[in-house]
Structures are given as C-alpha cells and as structure tokens.
C-alpha cells in the first residue's frame, strides 16, 4: 500500500475506532489531539439534534452509542446538519438498544433537522385529481416516520420512555413557517406516499393499494385535514384513508432527492 494510503487507513483507525489504532510516526500529542478534535466535532453535530434522547437515556449512554456508530459506520455526508440522520439510520437497524424506543426517538428528533433544511417547493404542479392518472407530487419537506412508540409526543419536560403503542404509528412531518408540523396518518396513506416518491402515478398508487386491500375508496383518500395550507394541493394526498389496517406492513421511503432510502421496521415485520 502506498505510504499516503497507509497513513489514511491508520488515521481512520485512530479517530474512528473505539480504541485508537496506532499511527506509526505520529507523536502522542498529535494522536490525542486529532482523535479528540474529530470526535468532538462529529459528536457535537449529533448531540445537538437529540436533546430529548440525551435527557431520557443519559449523556454517557448516548455518547457511547454515538461512538459505536462512529466505529461501525462513520459518516459519509459533507453536510454537518445531516449527521444526526445518518446516526439515526444506523441506529434504526440495531436490535440491541437499551430501550426499544431509543432508535425511534433519535429518528424523530433527527427528522426535525432534516425537515427544517429540506428544499423549498419550487414546483408548479397541478392539483392531483383522483379521477386522473397523474403523477403524484409531494412537498419536498415531507417525511414519514413509523414508530412503535409515540416518540413524536415526547418533550424535554416529559422525557420518560413511552409505552409501546397498540399498533404502529405513522407520522407525517413537514415544514411550515420555519417550524416542524406533523400529523399522524394512516398506513395506506403512507403506502400511497411511497408510491408517489417512486415516481408513480396516482392511478398506479391506487391500483397498488387495490391489490393489497381490495378496492380502495378513491374519494375517501382525499378526506381529512392536517395539510399545510401553502401546499394543500400536495398534502391532500396524505389525508386519511380509513379502510384497512394491514398486519404485514413493510415500508421504505426514498427521500425527496432520491439519494437516501429510509426503511422502517414495525411489529408487523417481526
């Protein structure tokens, strides 16, 4: 291995591994300083976004999980504000967290950062019509979380682990007036949203739901409220569908820029 490449490998082990790897030729002061500086920068970027998780789990325990993340799957994003979500994505795949709601809470708190920084809606799409086979359009800040615990209702003042919900909770989040807004939504709506993000059409989305649940009431898909007024035409799609609740629900959601794929696991998948 060329010397520069070898040095990069050694330095990566020094700053990211749980136990600092040796870097032959680098003095002790440099080893200490670089490991501390890099880890401090990355950990701060995550910690700032998850105050409730820190309060409920404790600072040391949260730090320990962030350090595990750094060692097992170091961040790949150049955007500092995306660090919390990368941590949350790694955490969501773990089944050994100290509380089953921990990963969900970190995801929810990270989702807020993601929503607040999501691109603006610069599109000029026509309002979707349930009778036409138009392409579905979502607001760029729309994100979906699926949780077994009502972590979206936790606050700093009420930071105790919630009881597991009787059924998975589907939470749609979006940005309005620079703040986070959210609503609980129906799993079928979530699936429709997933089809939309896949570039599908409204007709294809309903046809997909039909194959799962029988004929879905198309008019019913557009009832309900909770949509942000500015982008109401887009959010009408998210209004509650009120027919069935699937027991074998799996869900994946590609983000607005189609670069990241969120996957969620619920009890129905266990």
């Amino acid at each position, binding site marked *: 291995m*060329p*010397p*520069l*490449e070898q*040095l*990069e*490998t050694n*330095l*990566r082990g020094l*700053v*990211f591994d749980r136990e600092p790897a040796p*870097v*032959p*030729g*680098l*003095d002790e*002061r*440099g*080893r200490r*300083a*670089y490991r501390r*500086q*890099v880890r401090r*920068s*990355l950990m701060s*970027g995550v910690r700032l976004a998850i105050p409730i998780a820190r309060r409920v789990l404790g600072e040391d325990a949260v730090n320990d999980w962030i350090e595990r993340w750094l060692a097992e799957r*170091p*961040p*790949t*994003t*150049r*955007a*500092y*504000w995306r*660090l919390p979500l990368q941590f949350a994505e790694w955490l969501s795949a773990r089944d050994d967290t100290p509380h089953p709601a921990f990963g969900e809470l970190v995801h929810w708190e990270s989702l807020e950062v993601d929503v*607040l*920084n*999501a*691109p*603006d*809606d610069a599109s000029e799409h026509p309002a979707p019509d349930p009778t036409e086979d138009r392409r579905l359009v979502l607001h*760029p*800040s729309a994100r979906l979380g699926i949780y077994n615990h009502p972590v979206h209702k936790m606050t700093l003042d009420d930071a105790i682990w919630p009881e597991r919900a009787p059924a998975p909770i589907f939470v749609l989040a979006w*940005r309005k007036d*620079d703040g986070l807004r959210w609503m609980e939504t129906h799993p079928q709506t979530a699936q429709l949203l997933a089809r939309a993000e896949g570039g599908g059409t409204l007709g294809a989305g309903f046809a997909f739901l039909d194959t799962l649940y029988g004929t879905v009431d198309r008019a019913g898909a557009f009832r309900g409220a909770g949509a942000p007024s500015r982008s109401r035409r887009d959010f009408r799609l998210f209004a509650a569908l009120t027919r069935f609740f699937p027991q074998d629900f799996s869900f994946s959601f590609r983000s607005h*820029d189609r670069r990241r794929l969120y996957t969620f696991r619920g009890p129905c998948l266990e």
Partner: protein
Amino acid sequence: MNPSVNTKKVEGFGLGFRFGLADQMLGAERSAADFVEIAPENYIGVGGRRARLIDAVRERWPIVSHGLCGDFAGGMPFDLDYMRDLRTFLKRIGAQWYSDHLCFTNLRGAEMHELVALPFTDEAVKRAAARIRDVQDFLGMPVAVENVSAYGEMPGAEMTEADFVAEVVRESGGHLLLDVNNVYVNSVNFKFDPRAYIDRLPLDRVLEVHVAGYFQEAPDLLLDTHAMPISDPVYDLFAYAMAKLPHRPPVLLERDGNFPPLAELESELARLDNIAEKVHAAA
C-alpha cells in the same frame, strides 16, 4: 422572485457568515464587512430559513465560498455529483472564487468534519495538485488552498510545511489562501519562525488572507478554534504578511463560535484595516 447577486468585486475586509451571526449581520443597517464568506456544505440543497438567509446575503454582499470538506489531498475519487451541485450553488450565489483546506477531511470514505494535517511528502504534493487542477477546471473559477493548523507532525516528511504548501500551489497552478492565524498556531505548536515561513510562500499567488483567534490549551499547544478574539502576536504577523505581499488581497475575519456583539468583530476588522493602511503607507 429571485434575489439579485451582488457583483461588486471582493476586496477590503470581510466576515465569515455564520448562523450565530446571521441576525446581527443582516439586521445591521450598515455593515463594516466589505464581503462575506460562506461554507457551501452548509447550504447546498437546503431550503427554508437557510435558503432565505443565503438569498439575503448574496443580495447585500459579494461572496466568496470556503469549503470545509474538499479533501483536496484525500484518496477518494472525484465526486462528480457533489461537484455538480457545488458548481450550481456557486453560480447561484455569484461566488467569485472557491477555496478549501490543504489537509485530509475524509479518511477512506469517512467524513471527519475536521481538518487533519497531511504528510509533507512529494506523493501528497502530487495528489493535492492534481485534485486542485481538476476542481479548478471543473468549477471554471479560481481555486485557492488554505494552509491549515496542525497538532501533530505526520510521518515521512520530506520537506517543511511552508515548502509543502508552496509546492502544491506551484504545481497545481492554483492560488493560496494565506491563513495568518494558522501560521502562528503552527509556529508555536512546532517551534518555528512564522516570518520565515511566510517568506517561503509564493506570495504573488495569495488570493485571500484569513485571520482568526486561537485557544491556548497548553503553553506549547494552540488550537485554531475561531472562537476567540485575534491575539496580538497574530496582529503582528498579519502586519508582517501585509508588508511582504506584493498586492492587497481581501482579508477575512473568521469567527465560528463564542459569538460576541457584532461591534466587537467590526472593531477587529477596523484594527486589521488600520494595520494594512499603515503598512502600505510606510511602503
């Protein structure tokens, strides 16, 4: 409606635009800053408040763009997707040049969000120079590399730090962003003469100058935190650099934390301006 871009030439004395200073800077009726510098990684692909801030900034000040994760000498392949996004963003804000740090920011795919020194070797010179040329060609605008603060000497050094920086600038055909604070920090951390260091740099290639404050962690260890006022030795070294430079590049004050009232930063800018004026009056 798209806001306009301030096309005034970047010159004089500028401030780093940071979220912690945004309200003060944009709220002030008059600005002591002639230009601002932003980190593109914090704005590419974002909407909401951040996007509106950058729109307001580009209307009011000319902008230069200073990257944090360029990894100029790293081993990762040229990231075409990111570079396209960067180019689009720089065009949108009317950035007049692009700079980043001469260091590792990514280690074998892992982003550090921190700056780690390079080994001063010919292999690193060649790798950095090639990448800088690629970036400059792709972006179609001047690219400058900044000398960084360091806390440990990487193994295998074949030249001094100053010669390493100079070699990279010469071989790449790029420009130098001379960070005076970083020179001073390293002169304490590694016990060398900061003036002799500056003397060895290709000063005719300096596109911009940075000044900032450091934190003294130990008698022999300074950290480049950008969270303190500029220290007197750095003002002195700044005066030396200004006297040596064959031209008057724009000077930027970096403050990334522990934000004081804007007036304090403006008085630091005024002091830098006074020093530069005195130096050039005496020349």
